[in-house]
């Protein structure tokens, strides 16, 4: 079997690989369903999510299919309304965090020297502090507005992304094609844009998937811990209604299920993509 044939066959196979992966499809369906729910939710909601539709902690009934919450609001409507901001925040936090981390990681990776080594050491040291503590510190300093929350979650992850991308950049800078580019006299900017970025892109993609999951988990956890922005979201619903779990389990179980489906779906999706990328780069 000639090498030529082997390569041309596998080059287009990321999609081929993905198509045949049932876990990808399970994940994609779960994520798509939750995202759709979050986007269309506010229009689908049978009630105003903050309106009182009955006594508090009513079990599911004809008017409120999932029952009412601690204030007598419709659980289903709140469930439908609670996803949009959450998803936007998670997306924004992961995007911002990964952008910053990629930038830092690549810069540290291509600029060797004492400053870079020192910054990397600081960045590594930050990772000794559990992320939740980092986020809490930032929130304590700047409050819990949706934007602050997003930035806090993003910042807490920069060091991790920087580490991963630093390593990926290191792999590129020890490759001969990088040396070749240096030898023709490419400047640092071109080296980053033309040699490093395209080749760390798969690592960035995988890292982005990881960071998305972690951002969503962090945001939900913060809401649950009572550091949320005060707007309705799934973590906050669990927080509010946990006390009534014996009276009206649906007020807790419903957001837990949606969160779980979403996060599990994200995981499946991410792993499938990572596997496909790994399979491609392995050839």
């Amino acid at each position, binding site marked *: 079997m000639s090498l030529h044939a082997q390569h041309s066959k596998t080059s287009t196979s990321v999609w081929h690989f993905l198509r045949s992966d049932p876990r990808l499809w399970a994940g994609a369906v779960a994520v798509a369903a939750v995202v759709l729910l979050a986007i269309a939710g506010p229009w689908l909601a049978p009630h105003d999510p*903050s309106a009182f539709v009955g006594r508090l*902690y009513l079990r599911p009934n004809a008017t409120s299919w999932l029952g009412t919450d*601690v*204030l*007598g609001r419709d659980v289903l409507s709140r469930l439908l309304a609670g996803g949009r901001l959450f998803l936007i925040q998670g997306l924004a936090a992961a995007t911002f965090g990964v952008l910053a981390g990629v930038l830092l990681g690549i810069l540290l990776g291509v600029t060797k020297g004492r400053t870079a080594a020192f910054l990397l050491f600081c960045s590594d040291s930050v990772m000794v502090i559990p992320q939740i503590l980092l986020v809490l510190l930032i929130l304590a300093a700047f409050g*819990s507005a949706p934007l602050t929350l997003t930035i806090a979650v993003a910042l807490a992850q920069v060091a991790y992304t920087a580490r991963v991308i630093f390593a990926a950049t290191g792999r590129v800078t020890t490759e001969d094609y990088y040396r070749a580019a240096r030898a023709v006299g490419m400047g640092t900017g071109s080296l980053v844009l033309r040699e490093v970025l395209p080749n760390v892109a798969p690592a960035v993609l995988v890292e982005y998937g990881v960071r998305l999951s972690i951002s969503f988990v962090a945001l939900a956890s913060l809401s649950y811990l009572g550091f949320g922005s005060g707007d309705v979201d799934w973590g906050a619903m669990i927080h509010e209604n946990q*006390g009534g779990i*014996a*009276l009206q389990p649906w007020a807790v179980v419903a957001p837990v299920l949606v969160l779980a489906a979403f996060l599990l779906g994200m995981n499946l999706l991410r792993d499938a993509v990572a596997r496909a990328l790994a399979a491609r780069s392995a050839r």
Partner: protein
Amino acid sequence: METASATGSNETGASRARPFRLLSRLTALAAAAALLTACSTGPAATGSSPVTAESSSPAGPTVLRVGVVSLSDADALDPAKATTTGGYIASRQLFDTLTEYGTDGSWKPQLAASVTPGTTADKWTVTLNAAKWSDGKPVTAADVVATVKRWFAKKLPPAGSLPFIDPNKVTATDDKTVQFTLKYPTVTFPEALTSPTMAIVPADFDPAKPIGSGPFVLASNDPGVQLSFTANADYFGGAPAASELEVKSFPDSASAASALTAGQIDVDASLDPSLVDTVKTAEGYQVFDYATSGSLTWVMNTKQKPFDDPAVRQALRLAVDRQQLIDQVYNGYGTLGNDVFNPFDPMYNSGLAQRTYDPEAAKKLLTDAGYTLPVKVELVGTNNQPTSERQNQALVQQAKAAGFDVEYKFVDSATFYGDAYGTYPLSLSYWGFLGIFDQAAFTVTKTAPYNSSHWVNPEFDKLYNEAITTVEDTKRKELVAGMQQIEYDSGAYIVPLFLSTVVGLSDKVTGAQAYPNSDGAFGYNFRILGLKG
């Protein structure tokens, strides 16, 4: 004023304890109308009927486990420094105050056998019950004098709350009698001494080893986790029914409620009204509730737009559906409020028409005053009470129909009581358990230190000044009615409802009684509770 800084420090310090305890300091500062009739001697034993009157004499040690939300690291064992739930609880168990608010909401002597005025209200004689310190020594008049002098010498919070006391004119005339000569006549002197911060301590008091005369003796203190006590068998009021008392901390009322029904505690001292059914439906548990004078009051800042306009304030008052608040937020536990304070005060103006939800009238007020709807308002809140957030969220919803666009901003309690405190256009404060005069002195009059509404009404102040010097009941009641009418018509507070204290109890717990004018379950008088079986 000296008080301000002292209390201020505790205010921020106390913020670790979730419920913010401004009100109790206000109670401590009580200095107002004389309730001459209340100057009686002997315990006022009439109160709302206890849940179970059966008194038992248990053979073995009975451990009463009480859950509260929540103890904190800031809980002080020096009663004069108490600012938190834990501090008050410790004070009530370990010490006695000279007077206390009883089960009917009026004051009665406690450690004192009697508190009687002289011919004028600036001279008061206090005689003491035959109480003993936990180290066996008798409680003497000298201890009382030393306690008072200690407040002033160390500038402790009670000193600021009792501006009428001249520490140099407090004398022990014999072992059991203390003479107070006040700086000026103060008819509310007995009420002023009800605060747990004013507990009497021994002359050689050491907070590290708190020796007191109270119904319990401290067994151990694990800050923020648990306070443990053993019964004081020699308590002058009779040994408490439980031989041991454990006060356990819970971070929120939900966990306390589940701990109750899981059998981990016998008393849930801060049952969230929304969770009442978890207790009611649990076999062997019940709910004990009573109305109080406490309230979560919305403060409209008259220095900020749009609340500088009385029309807006009235409109917002009409935009509050009080009954719905009671139903949705408080699960039916609460009594309607009418934007004036303390229905348990005999001077309370019950002639005012009950204000009801009228979004149309509110909108009309706003449009007539030239506003375009909706009127944007910022509401800043924190979780100073477990229900605060929900009450605020409900307002956002209710006021929407009345032409208000209330933007609710949640901040943590440290931020809430931080630099910006007092500048919020609209906020929610936990107040109450104060007589009308005390409340006015501290939150309503022009000079009131906690008047964060910055509302000033010369006519109100004039009526107040006149009433406070009026000894005659009916005349004074008339003046108070006038004061409350002004507040009702143009004030800056929205008192939507009065809170009920809701306590979850194991069926085994006996002796529960209402303390409508005291903060906390049973005013934290856990000595009244027993356990059967």
